């Protein structure tokens, strides 16, 4: 680690050593491929120095990601609530252990240290919060329905399926966690199109989930230009819902028009608190089952 903070914390002699620079790649199906397009964009710091050449993801990357989401969906939605909770909690644990790294990376991306620290801590706590909902939201939002006829009738939430997420632009880490945690704890799988200015944080978060027993394909992370993904993410016919929270009016309209192609649910988290079971419920379908009572 050769960032300013790292240097400060070690010794002056470290600066003589040649840095090993990292290639930041996208995260699909539990692997870190380069974008199939071969394109990149240069991420610069405030002074205009290039920090990294970041994958400028493509439509094909998104399509590959959705294929892996679909493949992973069945297994993930079948996992027990307890298991899903423990995996989310494990992500929080892993993130806690890498707090310094994230603060460091977010500072490279322009955060003040105090803001970075506050956001990383909030993200960790939010993961713990949603881990806790795993085996509770179904209890809170289910009903047993006292139908007039002689039937046992109950309704409970099931995952909507595959969710594409256009992540907020201004929150490097919390934007990802606050949009992915409620989606996956509800048994969905998702592909995140992450903030253009914060791709390093996003890829390092991919490394965190990769190390936390989250099965490949449950969360895919694609870096690139948001405007290139608005149409693709909203028009994909095997995607069941799309979350967009801080898109502009024109982009929102495009998303909503495309969503009508296969009656996608269009979800906006901006009006819902960051920590809320109603975020989980916005990517759930209520299933009602009838069964006769008799001999």
């Amino acid at each position: 680690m050769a960032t300013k903070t790292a240097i400060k914390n070690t010794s002056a002699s470290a600066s003589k050593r040649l840095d090993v620079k990292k290639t930041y790649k996208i995260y699909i199906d539990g692997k870190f491929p380069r974008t199939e397009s071969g394109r990149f964009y240069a991420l610069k710091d405030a002074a205009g120095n290039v920090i990294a050449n970041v994958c400028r993801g493509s439509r094909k990357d998104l399509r590959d990601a959705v294929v892996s989401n679909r493949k992973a969906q069945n297994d993930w939605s079948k996992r027990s609530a307890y298991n899903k909770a423990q995996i989310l909690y494990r992500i929080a644990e892993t993130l806690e252990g890498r707090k310094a790294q994230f603060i460091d990376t977010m500072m490279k991306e322009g955060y003040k240290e105090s803001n970075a620290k506050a956001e990383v801590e909030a993200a960790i706590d939010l993961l713990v919060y949603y881990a806790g909902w795993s085996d509770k939201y179904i209890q809170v939002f289910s009903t047993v329905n006292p139908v007039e006829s002689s039937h046992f009738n109950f309704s409970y939430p099931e995952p909507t399926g595959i969710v594409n997420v256009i992540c907020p632009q201004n929150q490097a880490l919390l934007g990802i966690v606050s949009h992915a945690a409620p989606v996956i704890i509800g048994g969905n799988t998702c592909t995140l199109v992450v903030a253009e200015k914060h791709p390093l944080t996003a890829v390092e978060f991919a490394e965190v989930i990769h190390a936390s027993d989250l099965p490949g394909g449950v969360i895919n992370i694609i870096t690139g230009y948001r405007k290139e993904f608005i149409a693709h993410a909203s028009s994909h016919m095997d995607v069941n819902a799309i979350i967009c929270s801080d898109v502009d009016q024109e982009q929102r309209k495009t998303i909503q028009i495309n969503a009508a192609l296969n009656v996608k649910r269009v979800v906006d988290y901006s009006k819902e608190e960051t920590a809320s079971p109603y975020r989980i419920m916005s990517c759930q379908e209520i299933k009602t089952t009838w069964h006769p009572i008799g001999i």
Partner: protein
Amino acid sequence: MKKSSAKGGLKFDTKWSYAPAPETPDHIQLKEKYDLFINGKFTAPSSKKYFDTINPATEKKIASVADANAADVDKAVTAARTAQQKVWSKISAAERGKYIYRIARVMQEKARELAIIESIDGGKPIRESRDIDVPLAAAHFFYYAGWADKLEYAFPGKKTAPLGVAGQIIPWNFPLLMAAWKIAPALAAGNTVVLKPAETTPLTALKLAEILQEADLPPGVVNIITGAGATGAAIVNHPGIDKIAFTGSTDVGKIIQKALAGTDKKYTLELGGKAANIIFEDAAIDQAVEGIVNGIFFNQGHVCCAGSRLFVQEGIAKEVIRKLKDRIQTLIVGDPLDKNTDIGAINSKAQLNKIKSLVQIGIKEGGECWQSDCDVPSKGFWFRPTLFTNVAQSSTIVQEEIFGPVLAIQTFRTVEEVIEKANNTPYGLSGGVWTDKGSKVFKVSSKLRAGVIWANTYNKFDPTSPFGGYKESGVGREGGLHGLSPYLKLY
């Protein structure tokens, strides 16, 4: 072209004959001409145009009905807005509930009249309108009435507020019941309503308007305007509408979803289906056969959740199909007002033509078509109960919603296979599972991607029971606690 008939099989009709048992329509009160119900009064349309609603069993005109244009829609929306702001949001929630209870009670008092009109205008058998549509519609009002002053208990951690004015567009298959499904939760949540019934079945909604007058519902709280697609579009596109609730085809649902893009209007869509009804070898076969019949022939198959794809496990396929044919052969097709009638008239000529053309496609694509050889009346729109065997997943009649009395039968061997086949459709409204084994019920019902699963039963409905689809079968739920949230702002 393969087409076989039941001739040579069991001849139930010679052994079982029923004397006609028609419900008399002499006591029902219908006007010759219906205006638009706006702001508590029947008002002539600014369009000055009227259209006929006919009896699909006789093709005779019943009444003429106003055709609302955009100016009429605007009047209705304005009345609804004023009523919401000045009246409906000002009275206490408990009082709001009491109005809704009143509506339920008057509907019960007039149940017989409503049932007859429903059957005359839409073609459904009186047995169904009398025993299902009308009582369920009243029950919906009764159920949601009680929610009006209890909304704070429905959504933990949230406060609730009404959305404002709801625009509601309903189909012709359950005219009064759909009006109840739409209006009752909207009112309980504190919204006001502009409702448009389907153009072929407007009469029970207009009778409901009279009931609302009788219940002293404040003017403008519910406005009922008639017309066809253009009227519906004017409601969808009106800037004064806060929420659209639509029940109808997936095609139109997509048009509406698209039209609402870029607006802040909320929406719920209850769209088409192509439900799998799955019969396992260990099912109680005779009960399953009844369930299959009810699943596909209920309301002439004009049901979005109809069990239109039958999956029979291979070992019992022959037996099930034989019993099914025998049973279908006994179904009585004819006068909707006759209490013996099992299958009434097809709702409209357009729908009949659609059914006929899809059946022709089914035959052309190599499906084996079998029809009951029952008698049908010479006048009116009729279609004999029909089933297809030798069809594939890719067959048009397996993929597309027919919305008529036509069943496509496929077989399967394993649980995994049938789940895969059942889910292999863009729809996800409902499904049926027939087996004697409880664990199999839970496995299959949890794996079907559909909003309503009937296990060892089919086509059951209740106001407390949420209804609505996954995937392209729609967004949101109607009925039950879950049917409230589409009409509320949670904060």
